[in-house]
């Protein structure tokens, strides 16, 4: 693991991706303290101000500071996306490992059902879930988590199939350990790495999907300054104040690029075959 970490830090992908992700985490943790203005403070004398020394990202139609809103909004966008991906990773790892361990018709039934869920495009599936549960940020997280689970199940199962044939698993079976013990204590720890790699790339999709749902009015609700919601609200002022839309849009893209790069970097670092 330290070796692969070294490879990661040496690759340009890993450096840029890791840097962007670190910046995103700093924003999430320190956002409210770093923000120069109160994100919902109205100022009718400072409406539609273009980016300048006072307001780096400009102001919106109510004179609110866009930079401060973006900094606060980082919590909504990034934490929600990380949460959705984490839930999908845990669910996927457990179901995938269990499926590989049990094998036979149970495995077949689980995997064919996962195939069927994957046949629904993830945005469509998220729409379906939000339509059932009602529009809110928590429901959007649930929707993304469920939509991402089958992909995680596939990754986890393919690794778990190889782990299943290892001697220590056979030993645990012979010892008479329970299914839950074998799956959770023996097999799961050995499939964590590939699931994390898959999860990192998935965070980028989750950020985009969550922002898209909010943009469509089905995720985070006003007065939140979630980035997709900010873009959506900025649309009616697009031609008077394009910065209102460009700044949060840019942030979504940068965070997505960061997690994409970090995920690819991790994959290369952990996969000896691609080190050419």
């Amino acid at each position: 693991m330290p070796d692969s970490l070294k490879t990661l830090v040496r690759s340009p992908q890993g450096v840029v991706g890791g840097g962007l992700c670190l910046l995103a985490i700093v924003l999430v943790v320190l956002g409210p303290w770093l923000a120069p203005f109160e994100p919902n403070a109205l100022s009718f004398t400072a409406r539609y101000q273009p980016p300048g020394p006072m307001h780096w990202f400009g102001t919106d139609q109510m004179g609110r500071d866009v930079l401060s809103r973006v900094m606060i909004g980082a919590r909504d966008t990034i934490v929600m996306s990380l949460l959705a991906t984490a839930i999908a990773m845990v669910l996927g790892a457990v179901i995938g490992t269990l499926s590989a361990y049990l094998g036979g018709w149970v495995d077949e039934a689980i995997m064919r059902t996962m195939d069927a869920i994957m046949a629904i495009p993830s945005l469509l599936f998220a729409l379906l879930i939000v339509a059932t549960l009602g529009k809110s940020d928590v429901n959007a997280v649930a929707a993304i988590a469920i939509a991402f689970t089958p992909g995680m199940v596939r990754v986890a199962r393919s690794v778990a199939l190889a782990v299943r044939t290892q001697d220590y698993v056979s030993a645990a079976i012979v010892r008479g350990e329970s299914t839950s013990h074998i799956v959770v204590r023996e097999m799961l720890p050995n499939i964590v790495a590939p699931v994390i790699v898959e999860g990192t790339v998935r965070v980028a999709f989750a950020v985009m999907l969550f922002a898209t749902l909010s943009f469509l009015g089905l995720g985070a609700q006003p007065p939140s300054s979630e980035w997709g919601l900010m873009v959506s609200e900025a649309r009616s002022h697009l031609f008077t104040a394009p910065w209102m839309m460009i700044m949060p849009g840019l942030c979504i893209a940068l965070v997505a690029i960061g997690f994409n790069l970090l995920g690819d970097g991790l994959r290369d670092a952990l996969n000896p075959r691609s080190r050419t």
Partner: protein
Amino acid sequence: MNAGYVGRRLLTTVYTLLVVSFLVFAMTQLLPADAAVTLLGNSATPEALASVRAQLGLDQPAWWQYWHWFSGVLSGDFGQSMRTGQAVAPMMFGALGRSLLLAFLALVLMLVIAIPLGIVSALRRGKAADLIIGIISYVGISLPEFVTATVLALLFADVLGWLPATGYVPLTEDVAGWLAHMILPTLTVSMILVAHVSRMVRSEMVDVMASDYIRAARLKGLSSRRVVLHHALRNAMLPTITIVALDVGYLLGGIIVVEEIFAIPGIGRALIVAVQSRDLPAIQAGVLIIAATYALANFLADLAYAWLDRRIQYA
């Protein structure tokens, strides 16, 4: 490719659609404790609730509800829209036609851009061109459609004033007007796919170019143009077909967003309207039709793959 393979592949497609239909129905109609209350809200009168229950068949057992709905679907009847009171099927299939035209344009544009980009970056691996294409594709993959769409609209409709920002003109009325309204949506939808597929073509090309038969072709003295286009590209394209088919799922998701932004009356927009107004029959029809389109695309891609790659005998 033999009949057995086609049959089995057809069977899994049908099974997938069965599971999808069950999921869609269970999530929209069975999962909410009382779909009638969900639809009308808590303040609805008992009479109104009863009439909606009767209309949806909620007073019947679950298996009957599913069967009633599903047998209707099989005969092309998706029920009546709760918003307009009209039949869902004609509305949805009309919208699907407009969406498929957009999807087709986006797919063609994507292939025209992505394949040459992938080839160039594979042949110039590690050089400046490869690096620039790589950076552009990372940016392309990380920009959600709603951001791309808004930026393109700002640039081409407002700053330059070349194209209409939103709206739709039917193809049968005015071909030029239709095309003008389709350019920005097509560009937006194909952006992410270009980034994804060009990376795929690049990595396949890199592998193929390093193989023995390419070295043999080079040693035979063939021109590098002939080696790349006739020998390498053919084999690099095979895995790309599968990726493109999988990307159709992403494409269909992108179309939903793009239709909403550019106000194109396709199936994506119809679905969003249905979700926002909680029009259950329309939601069910929209999701099922889009999922079926995706499943069909994957089925056709698998057949194309098996037909092109004669080495694979799916026993």
